[in-house]
């Protein structure tokens, strides 16, 4: 009886994270409906504090130095962050899973080459390499996603490779091979389904990481064009005013934290459910 209760209690943070994440996704999808006037500048209403902190013009999170509504710009920013997070993970996962399968299944030379490349990439801090590449490329969301995918794929590759090495030796894979299944069938029907749990967990946690990277790169002014509203850039723009108008930098930063926190909660919960071997005691 007690056991059941604890397992339910453990799931609560996961549900909370999931609800928050779904709300954020909804905000991002309907950003143009919710915040059509995010770019409007009312210079007479600039640097207005949030309404609940004696703001005069009724802005929930205040207005910035150009008189733009911060809450509306944050909704637009959700779009960039979540797009980069989810699409980036799909691409990073696509590359990483493929290379991990090749390294783990074909082994030998393939394995050595792919894992050495992963070693090299792991030696360069992701943000450092992303900053360097993004600085040289023209700023755009597509370029940013490509850069993040090319600098983070090895996380997937390592996990998938380790999974494949274990699964490959299983009796059911051996039997499939004996009855004449080819490599493609074995990978698609046997190895991928069994590696799915770890892949899903890693993918979820990587969404949070990629959102953190995107926000940090936007903060540094690389990656996304500086005119696009992003949470990271909004924090940077607010830095100059932090001693008088603290709300400009604070709320977009909190938005990043809540998003990443929610993704981490979901990821941890999924790990508990799908991959109990990795569960934290």
């Amino acid at each position, binding site marked *: 009886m007690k056991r059941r209760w604890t397992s339910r209690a453990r799931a609560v943070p996961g549900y909370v994270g999931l609800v928050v994440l779904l709300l954020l996704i909804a905000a991002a999808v309907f950003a143009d409906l919710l915040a059509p006037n995010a770019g409007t500048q009312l210079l007479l209403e600039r640097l207005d504090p949030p309404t609940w902190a004696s703001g005069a013009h009724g802005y929930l999170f205040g207005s910035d130095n150009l008189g733009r509504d911060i809450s509306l710009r944050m909704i637009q920013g959700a779009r960039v962050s979540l797009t980069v997070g989810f699409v980036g993970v799909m691409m990073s996962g696509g590359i990483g899973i493929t290379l991990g399968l090749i390294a783990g299944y074909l082994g030998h030379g393939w394995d050595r080459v792919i894992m050495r490349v992963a070693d090299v990439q792991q030696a360069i*801090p992701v*943000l*450092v390499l992303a900053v360097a590449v993004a*600085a040289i490329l023209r700023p755009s969301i597509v370029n940013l996603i490509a850069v993040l995918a090319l600098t983070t794929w090895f996380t997937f590759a390592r996990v998938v490779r380790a999974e494949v090495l274990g699964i490959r030796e299983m009796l059911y894979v051996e039997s499939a091979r004996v009855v004449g299944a080819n490599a493609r069938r074995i990978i698609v029907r046997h190895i991928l389904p069994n590696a799915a749990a770890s892949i899903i967990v890693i993918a979820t946690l990587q969404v*949070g990481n990629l959102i953190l990277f995107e926000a940090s790169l936007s*903060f540094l002014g690389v990656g996304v064009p500086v005119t696009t509203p992003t949470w*990271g850039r909004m*924090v940077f723009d607010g830095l100059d005013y932090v001693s008088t108008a603290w709300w400009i930098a604070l709320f977009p*930063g909190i938005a990043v934290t809540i998003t990443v926190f929610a993704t981490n909660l979901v990821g941890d919960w999924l790990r508990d459910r799908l991959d109990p071997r990795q569960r934290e*005691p």
Partner: protein
Amino acid sequence: MRYVLQRLAQGLLVLLGVTTIVFALTFVAGDPVATLAPLEATPDERAAFARNMGLDRPIPVQYVDFLTHAARGDFGMSYSSHEPAMGEVLERLPATILLTTAAVLFALVVSVPLGLLAAMNHDSWIDVVARLFAFLGQSIPVFLLGVVLIIVFGVDLHWLPSSGTGSWQHLVMPAVAVGSFSAAVLARLLRSSLLEVLSQEYIRTAYAKGLRGRVVVVRHALRNAALPFITMLGLQVGFLLSGAVVAETIFAYPGVGRLAVQAISRKDVPVIQSFVMVAALIVIVANLFVDLVYTRIDPRIRLG
């Protein structure tokens, strides 16, 4: 000894790979001349530039040339200062190393007690609070933590300077901002590896011998939980350097990260390349160091 040499060779191989990536950076945008030449150059100036820099030669020739120069630490001249780019980066390096060292100290001072407390009070409210803190620390971006610290301790309380360098007070906020992520990761890891060790047979034996709880944890459990902890600490070096880039920008701290960010806006490619090189070199050396520490602590590696 053979193990150490093997690791050293592996490190050199990785370094060669990194140098290749750094070389390839100039080709990322397609045309290296467009990437490297000053933004305001005319077509004639571009052609002259390509000839001067040797960019009109075949790529393999350029690569070998790049490697031979790189081996001597020569990554070209900075576009803005016209000084050697690597020299400029190395000049700023001590400040960044100071910052990241302070961040590591902060991470250790927070994570070790937090992980210990959580593990020794498993499933109590202390454990729950510690886990919550660790989760939060892993989710807060460096720049938000920096902003919050500036608002609270710089603007409101006037306890600490919000920007610049010169005294230990200048180091406190950047170090906390950079170190918090690692503190959270390390606390979580220490907690779970302690819990795992504490469930082992020999721990029960130690208790059965009549040893006190604290002795068991410190003498037996902590020592065994130290190995994954040190590995993770080595893996954190990259994150710390990434964090330093952001923190140096917020706190106007004159390290390599700030130099690199300034180089980006000027498209100062040699400085960016030198920066990537140095960051990777630090990570490689840190991991080698971790391997060496490992061989000292764990006799299985030294003898096996």
